[in-house]
């Protein structure tokens, strides 16, 4: 951050408030529990019990009272914050890194035509195999992986030119047939299918490798602008409402862990970042110093690393800060619906859900996580806006 940006940031009271809120939330979540004698999951039947077995009201022992099974609310709030911040930061890191990579690539390579089949292979095959691996572990999503694989194989058929040789057609058809078999077996249930799936996949790749060797003389596949390809993919993903997509994915996962939440949130939230970074890259790549360094014959990775990336980092940080706020809400929504970590893990969304029926008897159960979410989201949003104003005074 250069000096002028820092000055602008310092003069922005909203940004400073945001920074303070973020600092308070982080300090409370990570340091708070150190100062308490209570643990988040142990009920206190002696001091934490209200009349009729209702939650205990705030007292000297339990500053914020206790929850529905007499656990200290304040400590749970801090632990919930810890989870929320961890999820938000990791998922944001994944999303921003992925979004930046795809955005920069898409923007910089606009106008470069690539072989569709190569891109499909590059994307779908590793993804499909990763999913198959994950689903063997999680015993879920096999059907989904198979669909993805099948989709890629069928698309590949469409990408064939009409002049393609008989072997290309054979290869494409074989891929599609394998894909259909995969989908059928994948949807038929889990047991035993994973092995079939992997075997069929490997067979298909072998046949394809053979095909590649036979057909080097010609270019049998359609070529498309890389930017178009990437951005139409983003369009498809953006067509799904974010929270809905995240909920569907979480519901599909049998066993939720922190890692699955990171991935679900991170792998679905990168599209917006990719869009913005792409447009920024489009601007930058036409600037004189980039054109000059291209004219001087510098390599593409060098240009990307030295000229493009440093100029989009600021915007990525801004997007990331705002995205943290979004992720906090998303995590809360998931845990409110019971799709996040299983109990007894404290999380703000679950605490909201637990406190909901007690709104008339113990309103603090509902108020505590609600205020925590409010402050955290407010803090990150103010900070994000402040950073944007500081980096990019034109838009302020």
């Amino acid at each position: 951050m250069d000096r002028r940006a820092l000055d602008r940031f310092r003069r922005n009271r909203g940004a400073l408030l945001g920074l303070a809120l973020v600092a308070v939330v982080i300090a409370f979540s990570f340091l708070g529990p150190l100062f308490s004698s209570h643990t988040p999951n142990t009920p206190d039947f002696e001091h934490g019990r209200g009349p009729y077995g209702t939650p205990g009201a705030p007292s000297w022992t339990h500053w914020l009272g206790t929850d529905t099974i007499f656990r200290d609310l304040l400590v749970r709030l801090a632990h919930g914050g810890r989870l929320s911040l961890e999820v938000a930061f990791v998922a944001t890191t994944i999303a921003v890194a992925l979004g930046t990579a795809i955005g920069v690539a898409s923007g910089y390579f606009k106008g470069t035509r690539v072989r569709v089949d190569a891109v499909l292979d590059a994307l779908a095959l590793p993804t499909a195999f990763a999913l198959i691996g994950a689903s063997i572990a999680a015993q879920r999503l096999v059907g989904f992986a198979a669909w993805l694989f099948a989709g890629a194989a069928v698309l590949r058929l469409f990408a064939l030119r009409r002049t393609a040789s008989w072997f290309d057609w054979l290869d494409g058809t074989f891929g599609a047939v394998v894909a259909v078999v995969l989908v059928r077996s994948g949807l038929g249930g889990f047991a035993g299918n994973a092995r079939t799936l992997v075997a069929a996949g490997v067979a298909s790749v072998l046949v394809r490798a053979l095909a590649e060797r036979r057909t080097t003389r010609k270019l049998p596949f359609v070529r498309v602008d890389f930017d178009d390809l990437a951005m139409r993919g983003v369009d498809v993903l953006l067509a799904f409402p974010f929270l809905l997509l995240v909920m569907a994915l979480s519901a599909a996962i049998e066993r939720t862990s922190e890692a699955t939440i990171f991935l679900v949130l991170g792998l679905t939230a990168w599209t917006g970042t990719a869009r913005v970074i792409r447009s920024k890259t489009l601007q930058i790549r036409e600037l004189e110093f980039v054109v000059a360094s291209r004219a001087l014959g510098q390599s593409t990775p060098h240009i990307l690393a030295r000229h493009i990336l440093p100029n989009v980092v600021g915007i990525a940080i801004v997007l990331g800060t705002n995205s943290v706020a979004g992720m906090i809400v998303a995590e809360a929504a998931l845990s409110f619906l019971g799709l996040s970590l299983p109990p007894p893990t404290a999380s703000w969304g679950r605490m909201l859900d637990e406190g909901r029926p007690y709104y008339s008897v113990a309103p603090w159960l509902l108020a505590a996580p609600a205020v925590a979410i409010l402050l955290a989201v407010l803090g990150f949003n103010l900070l994000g806006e402040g950073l944007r104003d500081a980096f990019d005074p034109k838009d302020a």
Partner: protein
Amino acid sequence: MLRALSSLLLAGAVALTASIGCQKKDGSAPRAKPTEGAIPHKGGTLRLATYSDLRALDPAVAMDTESAPYLNLMFSGLVDYDDKGNIVGDLAERFERSDDGLTYRFFLRAGVRMHDGSELTADDVKRSVERTLRSETPCPALAFYERIAGLAEFRNKTTPSLTGVGVEGPRVVTFKLARPDATFLAVLALPFLRPVCKSAGTKYDDTFQNAPCGAGPFRFDTWQPGRVLRVRRFDGHYDVANTYLDAIELRMDVPRLTQRFMLERGEIDAILNEFERPGAIYFRTHPEWSKYLTQTPVPEFYGDFMNVEMRPFDDKRIRQAVAAALNRPNLQKYYEGWTVVTGHLLPPGIPGHEPHPPYEQKYDLARARALMAAAGYPYDAKTGKGGYPETITYYAGEGEGAIRYAQLLQQDLAQIGVRIEVKETSFAQYLAMAGRPKTTAFGYFGWLLDFADPSDFFEPLFSSSAIAEEDSQNRSFYRNPELDALLERAHAELDGDKRIVMYKEAERIVCDDAPGVFTYNPLKLELLQPWTRGYVVHPVVNRRFKPVWIDDVARRAAFALLGPGRSGAALGSLWRRW
């Protein structure tokens, strides 16, 4: 921007305070008082709600507590309970039992109509019984009927028809038993063998429940699974004179909190034992509402089954350790005024029940840890190391209460090094999971009586004959030849006192062998609108809606101001607030 933001926050805070303030002032008294001197009259729809879902509407296969009240309405049987819990004839005008206790003869009423308009004959009765007991039918209650003569031959297709059920004329049916059975009439009063229309055919088919058809006082109208069930009065029923409601409508998948609001707004006519805790406290302490609230101990128990075919519960010591690790004194503090925490199977109201038999499961942490150590999984409480190495998935029920209980259990079991992961399951999902062998190691279970006899608690839950490939009621998949033999003897024993002694011995065995943790007997809370009349808590049958009638005057008075319906209610409450 900051200013705009802070004013927004302020506005929010004001709105919040205001809404809480209004909440307090408005309260929510019942909307009407029961009309003095009103007598039962026809008309009106009884509107109910449940957070749960119905699994099936075919009497041959449905066994969940949610669908039973509606099966009772749509399908009448040969016998039924009277208001005091005695068994009397229903579709059978009268019945007689032979001296050896092996033959029952039922004489059907003349002119009993089924919902399709045809007259009920003895052949219909026999066809319906055979339909349910056929080997292809996934009837979950087969164990109840295994004493009918010729059942085994019929099920393995040696005989084309069930020889134990005879037709002696168009309106005379006989049941022959292979062995005496002290509970035969009681199991006959259950929905499973009740006559179904000819449209049901002779074989079970899962499409029949899309248009169930029987001889009950109410007939099927609509069923959208997960949404709504509607039945309406069948005017061809022989006892139509004592049936008042036009229809009964059950909305499903309605959370407890929503039910409370719906009741306060007059949108449903009762909350039947589906309260969230604060709601129950609220209604209990409310000067007006508490008049319409009944609190009855129910012969029902809850606990957690441990599947003895699955690790680690194939080891008796681990089961015993789990049973001893549950901190029952703390649990009673949590459940204060809500349930009675127990350590044994038979609930209050069942012959043989006593509050604290000497053999009941007790909280004893030291013993539990010693048992874990003996099983090869010593746990060191200081370091938190040791114990059973794998995390066990525990299938909790649906809703707040179930999850809270599960977390208390989780904490207690962590004290002996048994770590569980709580998984919330819908009722239908639970039934499908827990009834399959080697599928679910650990989960909640409970039993609501079918008939007030200890055999009804032991046989379906712990006898080896209740083990099935699908829908196994024996969730623990527990087999014990000694217990089986004891239960068999007790079942046929006609001397009441001798039976009780046998069942107490059986209870000692299951408490010690611990195929389950016995946890609590709930109290049943039912809150009716002032205009919902005629409903009485029946000693045996859960939720009997047939005698219910709607006090039309009172219900109309509740919405008199601006007419019935939701908008009327909303406007009405606005009016009162003014």
